[in-house]
Structure formats: structure tokens, C-alpha cells
């Protein structure tokens, strides 16, 4: 019995009864772990406990939500259709940049089109869908590993083009030598180049509580309560936004993808995954299906990018390095490609334990050793730590380098999963291409002759 099977067997039957309970139970467990650990850290550091706990839970909720969103979108490509798309970061970048450029004021630097934000978001999704449709063209004729190279190349092309000063739009004087505003039929815009670009909104949930002039009625109540508990207003707005993402958008993605998956369209996608030749032999124009699924999936990735990177008020091209794609892929693989519940579970497990877990553990180790031996000695570099011959200094260096060791851990997890459990936690839930339950072997009694 592998580690994964044992972990699965240890989950109480109550949570396994249905998917909502499973995800809720997972979130609850995560919150309890993070709540206890951040409360402990706050107590050690003499900080406000309520603020620390809610802040930690809000930030982990946000990460869980965005990774679940993107893993769901990727599930449509990889889990359902078997298209090995590792250009996710590029499509996220297209979404975020398209929204920012459409919404930026024409007089700003870089200039934009000045559309209202909702229109800009819809426009950005359409643009991402079109780019996704173009990216699908290679997918029509390439094997999975070639497609991987093409999509990662495409995502780097997108990032490099956004990074180039040639289209930056930062020099708006047409007479100046470095004039770099893009001018298409009189519509001028720019990408901001390496300096990055402002996104229309930072803290999108703030509108619920605040207006230009003061607080809304809800804001007065909630901010008042938060203030009484010692929780900062930014923690409240961040937490609200994370909650909206988790309850609103993740649910919407889940419902949408489940409906796509169970529709005739979805069954063709799964048939393509299983054996494209068979799907073609049955008269399905698989090329059209691939283009469509690329457009839908990329638009969903674009929206995921907007909700995630578009919510900080500022973004630059280096946010969209291929590492982001690998994060999302890991999330999906951990959860189990081919199952929407698996995608959500994977997003949650990845964000809570693989991505943020090491940092949290390092914080706990620091706090505990502070209680036991006073603060940990810190070494400026590996050599200094090594020649100190002091286990505490080694521990201090390990804790300081946790941001890098996290990746080593992540890599080891990927290798372990591929060797031992390539289907992920929920791999057994991979949906088949059939519309009926294939494991259901009950013989229907009505009609037909019996053997006797």
C-alpha cells in the first residue's frame, strides 16, 4: 500500500461521502493547522492573535482559490482532452495584460483604451480565447511532448514580447527618439515593458466596504467589528476577496467544467484523450474540438490570471515565468488530472502544503528554537554555515534558505508522484469517456431471452 493509499484510507468516511464534504473537510483541516500555527507564532512574537490568524487564513484561502481555479482550467486541457499545455503562464499574462491595457486611461503612461473594467475583463477573455485558438493550431498535429515544447515556447514568446521596451508605451512623445507607443489605426496603447503595468484595481473587495467618500453601511458594521477584535481593514478586504474567489469563482468554474465534462462535447474531449483515432473514426472532427477546448480553457486561464495577478494593482512580465505553469501543473497532478474535484483538492493541497507549508514550518522551527535556545544563529552563506560545525547554525541556514529548499521539495514531490502515484490523490476519480457508469454491471431483467 503506497503512502497515498494509506493517507486516503485514514480520511474519515463522513468526508468521503460526497465531494462538498471532502473539500470542506480538507479546507477545515488546513484552516485548523494554519490557525493553530499562526496563533502560536503570534503568541511567541507578542502580536495580535486575531489579526495574525485571520490574515494567515485569508492569504492561504486566496492561494487555494487561485490554484484551484487554474488547476480546473488546466484540467479541461490535460485532464479531459489530454492536451499537454504547459503555456499557462503565457495565457494568464495575455488575460491580465489585455484587461490592463483595455482599462487603462488613454492619457496614462503607458496609454490604454479607457474602457470600463467589466467591459475590459470581457474583452480580455475574448482576446485570450483568440490567442488560445491560435495556440491550438500546433496542437492539431503534434504529439504531447512536442506540444509541451511549443506551448512553453509560446508562453516565453508572450513574456518576452511584453517585456520588450519596443511596445512599452512609456515614451509618449511621438517626436522623442525612444517613442514606443503601439499605434494600431489611431488606437494607441503600450505594455509598460519591463517596468510592468498598472492593473485597474488593487483590493477589488474594498468596494463592498468603502466608497470614495466614506464607509458603506456594511463597511461600518464589519470594520467596527474587526476593529474591536484588533483586525486590520486590509486583512478584512483581502479575506473577503479570497472568500469571493473560493465560494463564487471556484464554484462557478467547477459547475461550468462539470457541465462541459458531462455534455456530449465533453465526452468527445475524453474520447480524444483516450484515443484520438477512434474519435475521428466515429466521425468527430477532432481538430475543431481541440480548437474549441483550447479557446475555452485559455479564456478560463486568462480569467484566473486576472483574478489572481490582476488583483494586486500592478503586474510585470516576470510574474509569468514558466515556473508558474509548473506550479499549476503540480497542483493538478497532486490532485489527480481528469477529475474536477481532484483539481480543487490538488489546488488546496498544493497551495497549503507544498507552496506555503515549508515557509510555515520554517516559521514554527524558528519560533520553537527561539523558545528553547534563544534566537537561531544565522549564517551569511553556505560556506560560513558549513565551517561553523554548529548544528544550530546549520538549522538557521536551512530555515533562512527555505524559499529555495521549497523548490527542491517540490521537485522531489513531482518525481515521487510520477514514480508511485502518477494519477494523484483523486486519480481513481478520472472520468471515463462513457456516458454510463462502466462499473455498473447489473443485468437488466426486462426484455431479452435468458440463457436457459
Amino acid at each position, binding site marked *: 500500500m503506497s503512502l497515498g493509499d494509506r493517507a486516503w484510507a485514514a480520511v474519515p468516511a463522513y468526508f468521503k461521502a460526497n465531494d462538498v464534504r471532502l473539500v470542506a473537510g480538507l479546507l477545515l483541516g488546513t484552516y485548523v493547522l494554519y490557525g493553530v500555527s499562526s496563533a502560536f507564532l503570534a503568541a511567541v512574537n507578542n502580536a495580535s492573535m486575531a489579526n495574525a490568524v485571520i490574515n494567515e487564513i485569508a492569504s492561504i484561502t486566496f492561494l487555494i482559490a487561485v490554484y484551484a481555479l487554474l488547476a480546473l482550467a488546466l484540467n479541461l486541457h490535460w485532464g479531459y482532452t489530454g492536451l499537454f499545455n504547459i503555456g499557462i503562464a503565457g495565457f494568464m499574462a495575455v488575460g491580465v495584460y489585455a484587461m490592463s491595457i483595455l482599462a487603462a486611461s488613454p492619457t496614462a503612461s503607458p496609454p490604454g483604451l479607457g474602457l470600463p473594467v467589466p467591459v475590459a475583463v470581457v474583452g480580455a477573455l475574448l482576446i485570450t480565447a483568440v490567442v488560445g485558438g491560435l495556440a491550438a493550431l500546433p496542437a492539431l498535429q503534434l*504529439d504531447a*511532448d512536442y506540444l509541451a515544447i*511549443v506551448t512553453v515556447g509560446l508562453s516565453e*514568446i508572450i513574456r518576452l514580447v511584453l517585456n520588450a521596451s519596443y511596445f512599452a508605451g512609456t515614451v509618449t512623445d511621438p517626436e522623442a527618439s525612444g517613442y514606443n507607443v503601439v499605434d494600431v489605426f489611431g488606437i494607441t496603447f503600450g505594455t509598460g515593458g519591463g517596468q510592468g503595468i498598472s492593473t485597474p484595481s488593487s483590493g477589488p473587495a474594498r468596494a463592498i466596504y468603502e466608497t470614495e467618500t466614506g464607509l458603506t453601511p456594511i463597511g461600518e458594521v464589519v470594520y467596527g467589528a474587526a476593529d474591536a477584535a484588533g483586525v486590520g481593514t486590509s486583512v478584512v478586504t483581502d479575506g473577503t476577496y479570497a472568500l469571493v474567489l473560493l465560494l463564487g469563482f471556484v464554484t462557478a468554474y467547477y459547475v461550468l467544467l462539470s457541465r462541459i465534462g458531462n455534455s456530449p462535447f465533453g465526452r468527445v474531449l475524453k474520447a480524444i484523450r483516450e484515443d484520438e483515432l477512434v474519435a475521428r473514426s466515429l466521425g468527430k472532427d477532432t481538430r475543431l474540438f481541440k480548437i474549441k477546448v483550447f479557446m475555452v480553457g485559455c479564456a478560463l486561464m486568462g480569467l484566473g490570471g486576472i483574478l489572481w495577478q490582476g488583483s494586486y494593482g500592478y503586474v510585470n512580465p516576470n510574474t509569468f515565468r514558466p515556473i508558474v505553469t509548473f506550479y499549476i501543473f503540480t497542483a493538478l497532478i497532486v490532485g489527480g488530472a481528469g477529475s474536477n474535484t481532484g483539481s480543487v483538492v490538488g489546488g488546496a493541497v498544493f497551495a497549503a502544503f507544498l507552496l506555503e507549508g515549508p515557509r510555515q514550518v520554517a516559521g514554527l522551527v524558528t519560533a520553537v528554537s527561539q523558545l528553547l535556545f534563544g534566537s537561531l544563529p544565522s549564517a551569511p552563506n*553556505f*560556506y*560560513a554555515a558549513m565551517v561553523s560545525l554548529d548544528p544550530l547554525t546549520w538549522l538557521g541556514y536551512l530555515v533562512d534558505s527555505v524559499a*529555495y529548499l521549497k523548490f527542491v521539495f517540490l521537485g522531489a514531490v*513531482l518525481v515521487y508522484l*510520477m514514480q508511485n502515484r502518477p494519477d494523484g490523490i483523486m486519480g481513481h476519480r478520472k472520468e471515463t469517456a462513457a456516458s454510463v457508469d462502466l462499473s455498473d454491471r447489473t443485468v437488466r431483467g426486462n426484455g431479452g431471452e435468458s440463457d436457459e
Partner: protein
Amino acid sequence: MVLSDTYSDARRTLVERPAVVLLGLVIGYLLVDLAAKLAGTTVDVAGVQLLGGSTAVSQVARYVLDGLIVGLVIGLAGVGLSMTYSILSFANFAHGDYITTGAFSGWFAAYLVAFVTLNVDAPFGNVFLVNAPSLVSVVNAPLAVLIGLVASGVLTVAVVLFLDRIVYKPMRDKGGIPLLIASIGVALALRYAIVFVFGTGTRGVTETGSIPSVDIPVVDGYVPLNAHEVTLIVAAVSLMFGVHFLLQRTKLGKAMRAMADNKDLAQVTGIPTERVVRTTWIIGGGLAGIAGFLIVLERGTLNYNIGWRLLLLIFSGVILGGIGSVYGAIGGGIVIGIASRLSLVWIPSDFARVVAFAVMILVLLYRPSGLFGGVKTA
């Protein structure tokens, strides 16, 4: 007879592959334009500059030389990628980090030697972490460079064989995609294990003040070529010839070619597959490591991202040359290197890598067997 065949072939291409024709036209236009630019003439049609301009011949020669140098490194590293692709049937995304491993292990060794042979002021800790600025050149410490070159190969081979033992060997039969994903895991773990020891800083490692440089005269100027670049070219070319002789003249080389061409047939014939796989890793890993050492020798700076940034260019080269072909990988690498530098004649430098990736995507779409027509390692 032959002529008419060629003619009908060309006609078929024209009708069936319009995109190929378009690509050919674009390349043809660029070549004519380059010729016009070199000649310093312009062709105007109705007031619109159609082609031409002026570019110094020496400038173009510099681009070509730069491209050749980068291309040799890409080609050298590409040999291993192409071989693992054909023999183990997966795209190894960790190959870039084998280059990084080679760069760090080689320069680590070179610095240790330099600490002994040169009169170094810096504390040993800084030398150990390759942090002491700009110590080594082929002139002041040829021994350090030579030992670094050997160490980059040997240590990378050790790391590569260890990784094969713990990661890839247990999953030989799992298929391309699980292996590809595992290799992404290996890439991350290896890169950040290096960061754990050496840190994320970019450091200058070569002493540039005293290295001799010759100016090769070209029509209207000169092209500088320094000793480090010469070292790179000599080392890369001789290693490529070494690989050529190994593949063509030894029994193991023949076995490798056989296995790349048809794995099942090779196994049936009694070729020891595991030994061939191990040799593949040794040659591929060693060349990748040495390529990493050489590119740092030429550029002068070392950081943990160097291999990952080269990886897609190497993929471009390998795909251009035809996956599985060692000579294709070398040729494709050189073409990609020169194309990405020569493209600077037309476009800003921000887009040099964009051009290389675009070439890769176009080749995959329209000629997946590579420019040299899918000639295998034979």
C-alpha cells in the same frame, strides 16, 4: 526526366504547403534585404522603402561570429538532449540544469585550483562559493581552466548518473509524459539545490583585463576575437569531432545508433540496453556540463539560471536539426545561434530569443523531422 521530377515536386509543394512557400519567400526576402543592406543600396517603390538600407559588413560579421559561438554551445549541449530524446524517448527538461551543474562544478574546481596557483587575496570562503570576483583567465591560470573543463564534465556526469539511478531508471517504461514531468521535478530540485549552496547572485568569474584579443579585419572594419572565445571554439569543435568518432568508429557508438533507430530491434539483437542508456547519459551529461563551463568562460558571468535560459534555445536547435540526430543537433544549434544573433540586423535585441522560439515552433509545425530531413545518427 530528373528536371521534370524536381519541377513537379516544387509544384506540389507550392500547392500543398502554402505556408512553407510563404516561409521560403520571407527568408528569401530577408536574404535579398541583407545583401542590399550590405551593399548600402535601397530599393524604393512609390516612396516606400521596400528593402535595403545600410549595415556595416563588419557588424554582420560580428553577429555571425557571436551567433557561431552561442550556437556551438547550444549544439554541444543539444547532442545530449537529442540522444536522450531518441534513446529514452522523452523531452528532458532537466537538461538545462545539467548545464548549470557543469558551470558551477567546473568553476568551483577552477577557483580552487586558482586559489592554490594564483596569489589570491580573497578569503577561502569566497573562493569556495565562487564569489571572489573575476579571478581566472586562460592566460593567468591555464591549468585552472583546463581542470575546470575536465571537472565540469566529470562532476556533471556523476550528478546525471545519480539522478538517472534514483529518478529515471525506476520509470523506464512509463512513457514520455510521466518522464517529462519527472524531469521538470528534477530540474527544479537540481537548480535550487545549487542555489542552496551557491546562492542566487550573479558573479563575474573571468579575469578580462589581460586576455589577448585579435582584431580580424573585415571589409569595412574589424571583428574582435579574444582568447576565451578561441578556447570555446577549439574545445567545442574538438568535442564534436570526438562524439563523431565515438559514434562512427566504436562498437558502443554503433549500438547507440541502432538503439536510437529502433529500440526493439536493438534489444532483440542482444544490445545491452542499460549500458547504452548509461553511455548516453555519460556523453550527454558530460557535454552539457562542459558546454556550461565554456559559455561562462566566454560570457564571464555565472548564475543559477544560465542553463534554464539556454534550454529552450537548445530545444529549438535540436528540433531544427531533427530530434534523434546528433549531427542535426549540432547543425541546428549553430543555425539557431546564428539566426538569433543575425536577426538583430532587422529587429531590436529584445526579440532575439523570440525569433529563435518562433523558428522552433514553425519547424515543428511544418517540418517536424527537422531541416536535415530526419537523418538519424547514422
